[in-house]
């Protein structure tokens, strides 16, 4: 599996979050909380996980989603 740099993943997540939730990519920074800062609900989180799997080839199971609270959490999960 190809490995991705933190910057690549952040940029990819920015595109995904823009597409799924309409949040401009430049607002998607590593420290942002999905719920509190980006106003992303639990169903949009699933859409982000599905799109991230397509993009990065890493499956994010539903039972892990609740632990991924910030953009950095997702970056770390994908890199791991």
């Amino acid at each position, binding site marked *: 599996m190809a490995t991705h740099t933190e910057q690549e993943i952040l940029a990819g997540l920015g595109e995904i979050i823009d597409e799924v939730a309409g949040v401009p990519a430049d607002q998607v920074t590593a420290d942002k909380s999905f719920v509190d800062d980006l106003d992303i*609900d*639990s*169903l949009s*989180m*699933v*859409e982000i*996980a*599905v799109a991230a799997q397509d993009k990065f080839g890493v499956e994010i199971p*539903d039972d892990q989603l609740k632990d991924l609270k910030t953009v950095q959490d997702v970056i770390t999960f994908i890199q791991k």
Partner: protein
Amino acid sequence: MNLAPTAPGARVLAFGEYQPGRVVTNEELARTVDTSDEWIQSRVGIRERRIAAEDESVADMAVAAAGKALAASGLAANDIDLVIVATCTQRDQVPNAAATVAARLGITAPGAFDVNAACAGFCYALSLANDAVRGGSARNVLVIGAEKLSDWLDWNDRTTCVIFADGAGAAVVSASATPDIGPVVWGSSGDRADKIYLRDHRYLYQEGQSVFRWTTTELYPVALKALERAGVRPEELTAFVPHQANLRIVEAIARKLGAPQAIIARDIVTAGNTSSASIPLALSRMVGRGELPSGSTVLTLGFGAGLTYAAQVLRIP
């Protein structure tokens, strides 16, 4: 041994629907559980739903919807020789709903059975009706989806009580010279039975995120397969009428069909999620509003607990 005479095809002659009189708005729910109109509309797309009276049963609603479909079909009660009720919410397992419904409609001694494929039930029942007519087991079939979800809800659970509702829809299916109901594509995934079930044998529960992922990623290929098997291209579709589970699920599946011209059923907005009733209810209401002209081609897709799913193409009478 002789075989029954077969028919070249089957078609829907007419639809009918019934919704209970009581409208429950999001604002009304927000008075008793921690939710809001904004939360419900953004998460599930429902503005209001209908809830049956305490003494109103699945069979009562089935009779009301089926009576309208029968009247609109032009057939007499005794022309019907098979009654199928798709339901998963009867209070009692015994007796079945279908025989009672038939008797109350004045249909004498038809074949009568219930189908439980949860929210996919109507598509399963319609397929069985199609096969029964084509195979010669029945001439005219009454197919009904009827549900009283309100009996199986924890009205303090804001993740479920805002979604589910009550209602019924019905179709009369008869033999025809041309096939106007396409081949069914159906299946199940019983290894995921724990995603939608009755908690404590009493309250409907679903794992929202898992169900959302399943429905938005695995079901559009089922819908496309039903089109392919019927020989209908996505751009020929007049409408897509999936189970009204959640408006976001409906729209996510619709986006993947490649049928931008198709009307997308959004009956959930004012009907809620009525499980097996949602597809015939939506079809009947869309026909009633003149949105689906006679002869137009519609794709249905049912999916729900089991997990179960089924899709087929049909022509509007």
